[in-house]
């Protein structure tokens, strides 16, 4: 088996003495589509935040393509090739759709103040490259040109979700992390999302890791599933393996809030 794209070993995270993640091992194979599931409060988003550098785990290692990520700041993690979307949309308000996506190219370009003031040829070329990449990403996710100059936050909700994905893709990631990408989408939009995620993997060759509560979508799209419960990784396997895993069933049935809708 070839080396994993992302490898987490023994991740431990605690806030003020309260353990959030405990000895978590986890991996994503190259060009894989992997889902991370688990009951509410299991620590899924915390794990995302560890991978993307927003939290610094007290224990363990995170390696992307042979490079250590666990001591890097979020922007450096992104530059190293991990892009993310947010559970609650985090678009740059008062900025256009195109400008939002252009943000992703920041870490792939170099020019600074002097280049901009003097309008150096290299800076101009870079600006064209940024715009071209942004347009390419917008087309890839299916946001048509008529929307590009609109304020990002005036788009329809489903479009905003896709815009976030376009923005993340503009960073040229090796691995894309999607935090509940289907939340709030209708059935048709969910099907479009499945197609889009497959295209991201097949056409762009990017590995995808998602947190998702919609189990139907998870079962349809995932090649591997990992299950997190109370900060502990309780299962890892194919869809069929997870569906028949007694610990997973117990974790979901033992849950007493309204989220126990994991239909196996």
């Amino acid at each position: 088996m070839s080396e994993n794209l992302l490898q987490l070993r023994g991740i431990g995270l605690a806030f003020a003495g309260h353990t959030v993640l405990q000895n978590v091992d986890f991996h994503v194979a190259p060009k894989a589509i992997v889902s991370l599931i688990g009951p509410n409060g299991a620590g899924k988003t915390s794990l995302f935040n560890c991978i993307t550098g927003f939290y610094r785990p007290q224990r363990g290692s995170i390696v992307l393509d042979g490079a250590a990520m666990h001591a890097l700041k979020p922007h450096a993690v992104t530059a190293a090739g991990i892009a993310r979307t947010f559970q609650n949309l985090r678009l740059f308000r008062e900025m256009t759709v195109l400008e939002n996506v252009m943000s992703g190219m920041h870490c792939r370009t170099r020019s600074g103040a002097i280049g901009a003031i003097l309008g150096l040829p290299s800076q101009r070329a870079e600006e064209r490259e940024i715009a071209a990449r942004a347009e390419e990403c917008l087309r890839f996710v299916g946001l048509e040109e008529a929307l590009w100059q609109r304020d990002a936050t005036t788009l329809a909700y489903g479009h905003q979700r896709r815009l976030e994905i376009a923005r993340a893709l503009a960073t040229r990631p090796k691995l894309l992390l999607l935090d509940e990408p289907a939340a709030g989408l209708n059935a048709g939009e969910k099907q479009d999302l499945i197609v889009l995620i497959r295209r991201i993997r097949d056409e762009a060759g990017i590995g995808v890791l998602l947190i998702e509560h919609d189990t139907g979508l998870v079962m349809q799209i995932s090649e591997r599933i990992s299950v997190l419960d109370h900060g502990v990784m309780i299962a890892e396997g194919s869809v069929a393996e997870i569906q028949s895993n007694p610990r997973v069933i117990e974790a979901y049935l033992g849950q007493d809030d309204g989220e126990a809708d994991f239909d196996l």
Partner: protein
Amino acid sequence: MSLSVIIAHQLVNGLVLGSFYALVALGYTMIFGVIKLLNFAHGDLYMVGGFVGFLALSAISGVVGSGWGGIFLAMLLSMIGVGCLGVLIERIAYHPMLHAPRLSILITALAVSLVLQNAVLALTGGQYTAFHTDLGFGGIHLGPIFISYNQMVLVATAAGLMVALEFFVTHTQYGRAMRAVAIDHDMCRLMGIDVSAIIGVTFFVGTALAAAAGTMAGAYYGSLWYFMGFLIGLKAFTAAVIGGIGSIPGAMLGGLILGLLESFGTQIPGIGSAWKDVFAFAVLILVLVLKPTGLLGKSEQERM
């Protein structure tokens, strides 16, 4: 003078200064606690408190005289009047901005500060106003150290106000609600606490303490000026940060520490009174950079 006398002397000075800082710092920290706003106008409310106390004393001195009795009464009137002004400012200027970007509300607070300063500037013509009192110059000698009665009354009054505040916060319904609001607005609403009213009460109490300090400072130093709130506002903020912003005991502790630091700092050769403000600002910057949570403050969730 021997070193020990200098130390004792500066200890007294530091206590007096620290009492003012602590009273003003308390308002900063309480208001910060409930609406997470750095109220730039707080120092100016201290200044307004001084002027209102002065006006109140002028009005009542014919009846009660202008000794400590009259000053206490004037101070109470000033606390009530300026406390109401604090509530009014909160309702007009800050309340509509609670969900606006932080930059907007900070600039609004700055604007309120400028309005207060310039209103008093226009009223006084920018001149110093003499604060006449009948306070004597008596005191007691403890060996070579002289402590004036005024200093003692002042520190005792400040201490009394702080004890009253501590009682208010820990033993009354409003005080407990205030602490709850400082933790989570939404949760308080679910529990049936009128968050908006509690914010109003907090502004009243916090501002009243600044007004008390303003009146006492006016009486103690004998003069008032429209710009007098600027420096003390900054220093009280420093005190609040030293103690840990949001923490009431922290503000008291921070005020005393800063008062003592400043009075001893000016004794360090090369610092002197010309550099004493630089010293205070340097302390502020160092604390903010090195330990922004202060001595008694809670650290925020760890994040990179």
